[in-house]
């Protein structure tokens, strides 16, 4: 009897593991998009193009290290090259999935390290059309997820924030069935009108990790868009824990920021 039960369980188990659920797809997608490798480095170039056509450039090196499993804690270290008034500034984030981040900024002109208040992850990142959440992820538990259809080798997932105080009512994500990266995202406002679109334009395989190296966020309300290019991307480069400290915030090591 026991033997039959085990066989039965063994047959059921893989089914349960491989059953496709919307939160499961989102989790897998976040794992690929934000948690690949033990650590990660990229030179990030952001071009913000406002409605009038005027362009602003933000250029930085981003370093990230994972602590614990997928959707666990992470530490980020950013060093700015451009624009001129933020050159040599560094920015450090300790990200926790279920509570507010710790954020520090270093201002070289007066050699000062400051903690900065960080309650709103929907805030714009350095004035771009991307938010902090777009850069470092959103807690899966904050939304209700459902698969609404499958098309072009993608799962199309609707994610609706559980609380009503968000600036969007829901988001549709097209997640590639093969590599689990988001190919496109559409944000709908309170009137259920499309107002923000994310697109992944170029994906490269780097050390076996599929990586979006060109992406754009377009805001249909303001008419601005931000194009982001990742260069010098690398994974598993052995970033030390000590990098994420006041010492190196003040004196960012050349070997990591170049």
């Amino acid at each position, binding site marked *: 009897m026991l033997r039959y039960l085990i066989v039965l369980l063994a047959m059921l188990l893989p089914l349960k593991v491989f059953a496709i659920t919307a939160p499961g797809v989102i989790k897998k997608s976040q794992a690929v998009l934000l948690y690949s490798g033990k650590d990660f480095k990229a030179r990030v170039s952001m071009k*913000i193009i*406002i409605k009038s056509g005027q362009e*602003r*450039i933000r250029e930085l090196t981003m370093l990230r290290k994972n602590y614990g499993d997928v959707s666990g804690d992470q530490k980020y270290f950013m060093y700015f090259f*451009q*624009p*001129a*008034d933020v*050159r040599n500034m560094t920015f450090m984030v300790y990200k926790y999935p279920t509570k*507010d981040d*710790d954020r520090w900024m270093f201002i070289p*002109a*007066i*050699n*000062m390290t400051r*903690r*900065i*208040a*960080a*309650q*709103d992850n*929907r*805030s*714009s990142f*350095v*004035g*771009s059309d991307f938010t902090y959440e777009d850069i470092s992820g959103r807690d899966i538990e904050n939304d209700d997820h459902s698969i609404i259809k499958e098309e072009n080798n993608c799962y199309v997932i609707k994610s609706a924030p559980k609380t009503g105080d968000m600036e969007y009512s829901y988001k549709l994500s097209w997640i590639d069935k093969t590599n689990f990266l988001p190919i496109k995202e559409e944000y709908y406002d309170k009137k259920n009108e499309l107002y923000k679109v994310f697109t992944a334009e170029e994906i490269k395989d780097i050390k076996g990790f599929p990586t979006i190296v060109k992406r754009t966020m377009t805001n249909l309300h303001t008419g*601005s868009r931000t194009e982001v290019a990742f260069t010098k991307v690398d994974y598993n480069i052995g970033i030390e824990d*000590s990098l994420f*400290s*006041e*010492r190196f915030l003040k*004196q960012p*090591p*050349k*070997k990591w920021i*170049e």
Partner: protein
Amino acid sequence: MDRINIVAFFIFILASIFCFLLHSYAADISIHGFSQGNYSFSISENPSGKDFKWAEERVQLKFDASRDPFRIFIKTDGSFEHIEDKEDAELREGYVDYTASKWDLRLGRQIITWGLGDLLFINDVFPKDYEAFFSGRPMEYLKIGVDSAKLGMYPNFASFELVVIPNFKPNNYPSSERFWMYDPMPGITNRETKEPDTKLNNTEIAVRAYRDIKGFDASIYFYHGFMRQPSMLPDNMMTPSKLTLFYPELSVYGTSFQGRAFEGILSLEAGYYDSRQDNAGKDPMIPNSQTKFLIGYQKQLWEDLTIGLQYYGEYMHDYSEYEKNLPQGFPKENKLHDFSTIRITRLLKNQTLKLSIISFYSISDKDYMINPEIKYNFTDQVWGAIGENIFGGDKNWSQFGQLDKNDNVYLQLRYEF
């Protein structure tokens, strides 16, 4: 050859040598800087009759070269000033870094910022330029570089900074030609400033130890040196004919904590100021020992809108001795001098437009300073700021009350490269 040329020549020669040496060793070299116009119009004319608190054009060059484990950094300014029509060259910072895995050393002129206060300083015992701050110069000019050696040590259990300053450098206060200020002895014009001599016994030492304690950034501080605000010593208390301005001995013992609390950032800082030349508090010419403390809270109310609140106090020890010994006719300070500050910052237009206001209001002295400012980044290279410094209060001798007639409107325009 005047001073500007000598300094400029010296810097040029040094920079050339560094360039040559570093180039031949294939180091990373970068040169950046800015050119800037900075004008501050006095709403009431200055004591000297002039209309501007500040009016200058300035160029800054930053030279940065590194080849592990060394780095050289030079930040030097050249300016042309219109109020007195003079040119000036200034080495703002210039130092050499050596970085090892568990320690580092910075030698030379450097800006050091400690403590948590927003424009309120307890454990930041390093020199400041209040003239720059009150004249509407960019914020970075509030801090003055000190010629010093700074040793950083980073064992696993905590981090340490040890600063040794061989030459005393005082704070810079507004000049009596440009600013209306209270003077307790206006009749005595024969004045002499005596800075502490450069000798081993007068070497200033500052130590900071810091680490994380349960998610809070915790620091302890120690300083042994001098007050950077001068005290006045009359040659004769009854019929003074000469005043000597000197810098009394000071030690500071302090601590600070900062972390996330109440959905914002909470800052706590305190320091005991030991007035070593007036331990009993009997000398009316030297400030008594004090305990200074600060509570700060910062919160992002919504996207791109941040508010910061501070409560700050200076508690005078041996107050009864102070009262007993204070000469007739001198203004009497309160036992507790406290004030509160509010800062509100709003970012707009992809964070290229910044509206900010900071206000200081002293509860004990009933005086205030308000500084609203609009800053706009026209391009990634060019920004401009317009702001106003507004002072006032009941008493003509209190910190901001004495500055009542010095309101000014300023413009800063900078091109960075």
